[in-house]
């Protein structure tokens, strides 16, 4: 009976410690936080509602203006800096607040 050949070990991938320990990108914590759960869009860091119609909700989220497009849009909850929007979302547009409009 032939002796079994030892199975060659697969080289283990080592985690890149330098990348893990590196600081997050600049303005990481100032980016808008959006979370889509079912038909609800949860936001954190919403400073103001700039516009609200059933077709469009425009939110001021620090350096970024977030505009939600869709149909039958509504705000389910708004307290402090947390806003929950609901409806049929079609498009989300992110735009820097300091960006000069094209038109």
């Amino acid at each position, binding site marked *: 009976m032939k002796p079994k050949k030892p199975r060659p070990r697969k080289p283990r991938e080592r985690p890149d410690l330098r990348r893990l320990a590196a600081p997050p990108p600049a303005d990481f914590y100032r980016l808008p936080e959006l979370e889509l759960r079912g038909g609800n869009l949860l936001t954190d860091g919403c400073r103001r509602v700039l516009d609200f119609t059933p077709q469009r909700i425009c939110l001021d989220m620090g350096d970024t203006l977030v505009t939600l497009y869709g149909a039958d849009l*509504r705000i389910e909850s708004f307290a*402090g*800096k947390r806003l929950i929007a609901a409806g049929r979302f079609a498009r989300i547009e992110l735009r820097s607040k300091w960006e000069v409009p094209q038109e």
Partner: protein
Amino acid sequence: MRLQFWAADTLRFSVTGPQPHRFLNRAAAAGVRLRRVRWQRDGYAATVSGADRRRLEKIARDGGWTLAVTARRGPGKHTERLLQSRPGLAAGAVLFLLLVRTLGGLVWCIDFGAMDPGLQPAMRQLLADCGIHEGVLLTKPLLQTAQAQALRRSEVFGWVSLNFTGGCLAIESTPSQTQTVREPPPRQGLYASADGEILAVEIESGFAAVTVGQTVARGQLLAAAERLDRKGNAVPQGAGGRVIARVQKHYTASQSLTAETSAYTGRSSVQTTLYLPWRSYTDEPEDPLTGITQTDWLPVQLGRLALPASLCRVTTWEQLPDTVQYSEAAAAALALRACRAALLAQFPDAVIEAEQREISAQEGAETAAVTYIFTANIAAPP
């Protein structure tokens, strides 16, 4: 009249006016939680809690918006009816909460914990002197003052802590531990304070000048504070320690058969004070007496339930100067006791081995002459 339970309500309102979304921003920034916000042709509709109604009205008034309450949902049909027909239920609940809040600051019971029962009356008196007993509204400054007083005045406790939680004042303490620091003996010798025969020489410093079995006379040097070395130089060292000797000493004391003393008359008066929250009632005795007083603090309890009240009973046992007629035996015993007291005053560590008593009666007095043979430390500084 329809009761308005605004705090328990849920309101649906509509806001109209210029730029109504700014109203939403202001309300959210003010801490109001807006729910189910819907767009309308000329404004928005939203749902809020009834407690936020006043704030919303103020925001609308300040910003020039028009606020209209379109629907209101109360705490429920049954609850509303119950509160309307039985207002005592709500009043009782409010009263209960108020009482819990107010009476929680009163001392309902004092827990002495593992403190020795013999020390508890003294601790109780110390607290009473600071104005703390059952029924007192205990404030933090009062508690801190009492703790400072307890630490300052009490020599029995090494550490005292007063903790007040939930109407119970718990006292934690540890007994004090004393550690005496012995001073170095002065540079002087030890001399015999009585004639005797040396039984033991326990000199801790200095140089012994006597040996066991030696007979010494009063005033004789027992331990020297200085000795010469081989070269003739003086080596000084203060003498300290004990020299035990067997001593024979004679004491005489006399006790008259009649003596003037302060005697109890058997009469007593009781002054009782009932301490209730924010007031107290005192029952003064009809004829106040002078003499020895004894103070007892009794917490008021209803079965096993402690109440925020306490009873302070001060009993005064009357004492008046009186002439006491002793019997011959009693006078002789007192004279013998005086002899022994004189011996122990001179030699506190004396162990009596034998005594010879002679009692004689002389013109209304009993005289005791006792010869003691005892062992004691006779080493004393000059």
